């Protein structure tokens, strides 16, 4: 059925198209690079003094999203892929989030408040997971009888815009895979937090990706456990 109006509904891609306007052109105008957001949102509560507002916060005022900074015949898109077992992580029975950062987390210091992380210039994005202990079956975690209790859940954090920002700031000379791979190896870090803001894990690799400093937190109590990452 090509004319869906017989079902008394339609789609924004289809209605009010100008004479001669192709469907591809309409889709690009709605969802392409120069598309404007159909809604706005405010990221968290008002920004405290001393914090640099992130671009996402500025965009909440309705500023049009800028076009990609990538020039040339091709562009690159990068994504951080996070996988976690549905059966949950050590100490993370329930929901938890993985926060991804690029560059020095200079405003975070030892903050254990995710709202502070969201405002740090190094913050890129987060993805959430719902997990449950395989011991108490507080939620679905697969059928242990068939071994599916170790099923993975997947999440994605888009990195491209953040990498373009670093390129604009002169921290990256380009976005090809070699440059970005080396940059991420040194500058990418992530934190894992429960919805109750209990910081579970903060991982940050030092120069060259050879040396790892890890800090674990239990509530407000901090336990430092530097380890090397070789062999893992």
């Amino acid at each position, binding site marked *: 059925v090509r004319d869906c109006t017989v079902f008394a509904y339609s789609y924004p891609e289809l209605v009010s198209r100008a004479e001669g306007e*192709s469907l*591809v*052109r309409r*889709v*690009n*105008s709605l969802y*392409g*690079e120069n598309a404007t957001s159909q809604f706005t949102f405010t990221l968290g509560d008002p920004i405290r003094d001393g914090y640099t507002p992130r671009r996402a916060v500025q965009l909440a005022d309705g500023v049009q999203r800028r076009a*990609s900074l*990538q020039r040339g*015949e*091709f*562009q*690159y*898109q*990068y*994504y*951080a*892929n*996070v*996988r*976690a*077992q549905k*059966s949950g*992580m*050590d100490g993370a029975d329930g929901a938890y989030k*993985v926060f991804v950062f690029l560059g020095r987390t200079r405003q975070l210091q030892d903050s254990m408040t995710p709202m502070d992380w969201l405002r740090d210039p190094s913050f890129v994005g987060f993805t959430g997971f719902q997990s449950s202990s395989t011991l108490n079956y507080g939620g679905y975690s697969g059928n242990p009888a068939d071994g599916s209790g*170790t099923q*993975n859940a997947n999440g994605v954090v888009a*990195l491209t815009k953040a990498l373009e920002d670093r390129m604009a700031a002169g921290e990256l000379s380009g976005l090809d*895979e070699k440059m*970005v*791979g*080396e940059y*991420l*190896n*040194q500058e*990418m870090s*992530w934190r*894992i937090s429960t919805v109750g803001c209990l910081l*579970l*894990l903060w*991982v940050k*690799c030092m*120069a*060259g*990706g*050879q040396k*790892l400093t*890890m800090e*674990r937190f239990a509530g407000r109590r901090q336990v430092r456990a530097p*380890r090397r*990452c*070789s062999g*893992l």
Partner: protein
Amino acid sequence: VHPDDAAGFEIDVSYAKILPPTPDTFPEIQDGGFKHLMYATSGRAGGVSEGPKVG
């Protein structure tokens, strides 16, 4: 990081090379789709598969 600290957790990076859209064409993924970006998280926590070390 010891596996006990983040059992079952993995993070890595993928990328795609894309021919940008024009007003009358959609973006087109090149070279067969998304690929795993080596180096990006090598040697990191949570059972991340290690690629060749950088540096």
